[in-house]
């Protein structure tokens, strides 16, 4: 039994290694398109409490999930108070919600100082020499937060070899990116409370300063997806936009949408309708939206590190038309990459399945890997919030399928942040029952 487990792990390691060298549809240098993005820089403030605090527990040869303390590697920073890690040499993801802080949003909506808080956390963790997670109670397994998906923890990082470990949670307060939200039962209550009071007195950042990278104008700007494509960085500063677009596919309660009119894409010289992914974390009211509906809504634009450019925080959603004809683009048979299709719903023909991933225990998400007709490797993703999902049992390794889905960017942290352009399968309903079907010559 034990040997089988090791064998499985070994094979998985080989597979990931193989992927890292062979995937043709990936690229780790690309930034998406020509719209220059100004990185957010964070000037550091004084951190006397973080400088003085030391981790007192032994963490070597311990495992966070079992012992409440242990060394981990960074998978990715989600925002200022959430990050994903993995055990050293492991592939499982440990999602951590940092204890005692609550930074402004920068993913599901854009709030002042949210992106700066996220940039600060990234800056520290991505350059860390070593990272240690600590639970509220060491010696016991960590506790999950209210989502049931993330562990609560303190994140210690060593900036460079030989330096002391620093508590990121505390430092984020001292950098004035968060109020102290922990209770008096938390183990570091005293130092967090003192640090917060001192930081608060400065009235800097979230305690009273305007975010220079946030657009405070409350006017709603009418825009098209093409406008966004051409000037994304000027729209991703928190500005609220009003869009009218056609629904091409539903992915959970999120949508792939396209402009109603064709526009000239200056990069490609072609006229087409621009498309983008609209992320919606709340499903209330979305169940009535159908493919082919024309919807009008307000939203913000986000440039996420892991999933690329997308629209977020949709609200005031109204259906303006229904039953309009939906056009699906066919991917060129000799396409080596899906990059130029990002944001569009496409059809790939004769996708050969090589591997079907295990479903995630929490939400049933899984990944299908295979090759395009050109031999280029791509992955098809079934996200956790997709409902209903395509049954995994239906997919046979070695068979060819015609697949319809939205193209999105995915940065794989387990492969040195390689950028993939993957196909996201949508909700499988009567309208989309043919989104994943055996190719004609195999019926």
């Amino acid at each position, binding site marked *: 039994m034990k040997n089988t487990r090791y064998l499985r792990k070994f094979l998985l390691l080989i597979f990931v290694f193989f992927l890292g060298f062979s995937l043709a549809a990936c690229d780790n240098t690309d930034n998406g398109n020509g719209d220059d993005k100004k990185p957010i820089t964070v000037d550091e403030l004084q951190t006397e409490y973080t400088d003085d605090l030391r981790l007192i527990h032994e963490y070597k040869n311990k495992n966070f999930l079992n012992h409440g303390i242990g060394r981990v590697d960074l998978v990715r920073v989600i925002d200022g108070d959430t990050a994903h890690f993995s055990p050293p040499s492991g592939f499982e993801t440990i999602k951590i919600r940092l204890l005692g802080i609550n930074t402004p949003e920068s993913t599901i909506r854009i709030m002042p100082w949210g992106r700066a808080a996220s940039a600060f956390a990234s800056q520290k963790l991505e350059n860390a020499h070593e990272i240690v997670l600590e639970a509220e109670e060491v010696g016991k397994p960590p506790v999950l937060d209210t989502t049931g998906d993330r562990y609560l923890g303190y994140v210690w990082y060593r900036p460079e070899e030989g330096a002391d470990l620093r508590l990121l949670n505390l430092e984020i307060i001292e950098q004035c990116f968060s109020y102290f939200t922990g209770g008096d039962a938390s183990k570091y209550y005293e130092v967090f409370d003192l640090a917060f009071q001192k930081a608060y*007195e400065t009235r800097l950042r979230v305690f*009273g300063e305007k975010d220079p990278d946030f657009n405070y104008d409350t006017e709603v700007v009418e825009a098209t997806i093409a406008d966004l494509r051409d000037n994304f960085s000027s729209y991703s500063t928190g500005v609220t936009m009003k869009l009218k677009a056609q629904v091409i596919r539903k992915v959970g*309660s999120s949508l792939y949408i396209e402009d109603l009119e064709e526009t000239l894409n200056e990069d490609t010289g072609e006229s087409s309708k621009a498309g983008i992914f609209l992320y919606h974390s709340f499903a209330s009211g979305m169940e009535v939206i159908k493919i082919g509906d024309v919807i009008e809504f307000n939203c913000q634009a986000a440039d996420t590190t892991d999933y690329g450019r997308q629209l977020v925080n949709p609200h005031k959603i109204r*259906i303006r038309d229904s039953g309009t004809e939906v056009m699906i683009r066919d991917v060129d048979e000799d396409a080596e990459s899906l990059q130029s299709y990002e944001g569009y719903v496409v059809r790939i023909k004769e996708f050969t399945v090589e591997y079907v991933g295990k479903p995630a225990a929490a939400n049933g998400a899984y990944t299908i890997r295979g090759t395009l007709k050109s031999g280029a490797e791509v992955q098809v993703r079934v996200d956790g919030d997709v*409902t209903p999902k395509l049954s995994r049992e239906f997919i046979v390794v070695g068979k060819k399928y015609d697949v319809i889905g939205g193209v999105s960017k995915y940065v794989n942290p387990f492969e040195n942040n390689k950028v993939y352009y993957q196909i996201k399968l949508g909700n499988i309903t009567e309208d989309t029952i043919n989104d994943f*079907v055996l190719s004609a010559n195999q019926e």
Partner: protein
Amino acid sequence: MKKKIIIFILFFVGVYALVGCAKISSIARFDYEVLKYEDIEDEDITISFRVRSGVVSQALPDLIKAFENQYPNITVDLQTVGGDYSALLKTTIGDINSNNAPDLIIGYPDHFASYFSASALVNLQQFINDKDVGYTKAELEDFVDVYMPENRDFHPDYPEDYYGLPFNKSTEVLVYNRTFFKELYGDNYVNKIPQTWGELDTLGKEIIQKVKNGDADEIFVESVSGNKTTYLKMSDYLSDNLPAPQFYPFSYDSSDNAFITLVRQFGGKYTERVHIEKGYILFDNEEAKSALAYFQNMARQRVFALAASFNKKYNSDLVETIQVVMTVGSSAGVAYNASGRYEYELGAAPIPYYSEDKKFVIQQGTNIAMLNQNSDAEKLAAWLFIKFMLEPENTAKFAVNTGGYLPVRTSAYETEEYIEFLEDPALDQKLWSEAVKVALSYPERGFTMFVDPAFTGSAEIRDTVGELFTAVIVSNADITKRIQQAYRELKPHVKNN
């Protein structure tokens, strides 16, 4: 428990040590003069408005901008505090202590009591009475009645004076899984939605039986392949092989509100407010015990639950996984029950009642108040902002922006924006709109809307009865012993103590 008592005492000591404890009758009624706008028109004034980070803060920026357009010399600095309302209170007490208080703040009456004790709360009556910038009698009467009393009765010598005005308000409604009901009971499902707890008890047992029999095993689709559809097998939630059932027909979201509302629906007393700084607990009575016994019995029958019955913190997680198909929660929070894992539609209905003569439903939410560490010019600017925000059009707009919060002016319900929200809501506001319509129907359905009387310490009493209710429902605790325990924990609030 010892720890809890110590924390409780420390909280009191802390609050008083920080802000100082004035003898409340010695607090001056007014310590400011009402200026005219012409007096400050040429002065650049910045006022700070402190709120909790979240839906409230997100709904404010365009209203603030509209205010600044109307009064170009006044700038509103919106301060959003992360964390819960206790964090807002704690931060503000610290600021009062360091003479750095914001001009305006939202909060609960017991928070305002702390500010009042520190002589930091502005008596708004002088503004309200002012013939230029105040309210007419008709305007004051336009505020929704039930929200007003908790903003009075701060100063013992002037109990009619207002120290706050209502700001964001909500009530409780029943939310049900409409898809589940439609599939199980067809088009006449509405007749099945329980109006009383007795009906809910009967229906709950029927639903359990139907779920056990597999009648709900082909409603919620999990996955689809070429020709095969796999459904959530709800009967597995009630499998005999499980150590405990994973399905309850009903779950109450807030255990605090459940205790306070249900005790009242059974005719029992909860607390008695003497004045803003003093109140007693009264829930050791037969009616309260009957209410607890009634719902404990429903819990034993596996009909009635709390999120804690599933070891969860939020009810909405259970609605999402269809482990619960009916829940009572805040009208402002209904959308949290939206589908995430399975596709379904939700509906809203009135909270069930126990008997026709005691149809009680709680009203909750925060008020707005002014703190006094500022000049008279800043006070006038802050007052103009309060007045602007509570204009019928603006309280309506704020309510629509937030979702399920209710406007605080009666005439706000007649504004164009609010009529559209009620009659033709955007898709993402549809459920909120339905919940608000239920809330608006309470008076004509014979419900009495009540407010949990606030006084210094009432928040701790709420927490304690919430824990009591959880112990009775989830752990099947002995009711009399558990009430006695709560009385020991709340000793400073026991009458004749």
